[in-house]
């Protein structure tokens, strides 16, 4: 099977997992879930890391550096902001 086909299999199955895990969700968690999922979409960091493998000042590398910067802002900011929101719910454990 070609990598593209395997990718499509993986994609389709993951989409269904994504549909299934969000079922009943209390309205108070709408914004935190949105924020948490947003942080997860910063997974692009994995792609970004590959784009800045050398320290040459080529356009590709500089764009790669910016990609890492943007993705890390998304990831770290996203997770921290989500945690701050959830902390408000009385720190339930």
């Amino acid at each position: 099977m070609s990598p593209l086909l395997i990718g499509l299999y993986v994609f389709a199955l993951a989409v269904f997992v994504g549909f299934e895990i969000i079922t009943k969700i209390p309205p108070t968690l709408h914004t935190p879930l949105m924020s948490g999922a947003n942080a997860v979409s910063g997974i692009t960091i994995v792609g970004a890391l590959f784009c800045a493998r050398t320290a040459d000042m080529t356009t590709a590398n500089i764009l790669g550096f910016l990609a890492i910067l943007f993705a890390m802002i998304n990831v770290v900011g996203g997770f921290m902001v989500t945690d701050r929101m959830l902390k408000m719910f009385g720190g339930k454990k």
Partner: protein
Amino acid sequence: MKTAVALMYLVASILFILGLKMLTRVKTARNGNRLSSTAMLLAVVATLLDMGQVDYTFIIAGIVLGSAIGAIMALKVEMTSMPEMVAMFNGFGGGASLLVAGSFLFENVFAGNLAFGGILPMDTTITLFISVLIGSVTLTGSLIAFGKLNGKISGQPILFPGNNILNLLLVVGILGSVVFVVGFNEDPNIAFTVSMTVIGLSCVLGVLLVTPIGGADMPVVISLLNSYSGLAASATGFVLGNNMLIICGALVGASGLILTQIMCKAMNRSLANVLFGGFGQADSGG
């Protein structure tokens, strides 16, 4: 080594699924978020292991600087401004996908002054442009959403006659450019120009998709754009042949779409009504 990295990616994917699932219950939400962030750390470590010995200057600089900026933004933001902060972070995520695609284009095509014909497999080129399109729309759309919530842009729906037709023309223009550059073009200069045109048109599309929507509907829009940024990450996964990226992107894309629908239902409206309604809610912006 490759097997170890692949297994780490698998564990990270599973942790992301569990983390998102836990985010849907009040009791487990906070730990779910922590689980997701652990998964992210694992994914980054696995990727660094996968890359082996490289020059880490840009990587370390990007990680340190980006983490610091993200942390400061997250700590300083007022509790009341959370949705606009999420919009801002989402814009950065979309921007990152666009930049990854751009970097890939420069390294493999433009730097060698090449055209697309025969250089990249066609499926890679197509997924690359999907990544560019969704990444750009997410970037500019999120910035507009941020501006509307922030009050920097009027929360009123800004609608001009033919807005939707113009959007349609933009989509046709983008698709046409991609088909042209993938299928028919052998000239490096045209390949570059058309690629930049696709980025430009996609950015304009992102703006025009969000400006007609009222400020009060922005949370729904942000949720939808968040779903888009997941799909952009997935497209990047196809370009790089990385299954974990595909999985996480698809997860965010799908769960974001469901959440968007739930939020619409809570307002007793359909998604189409929110996106193309262009009326009502005008006075409650911000």
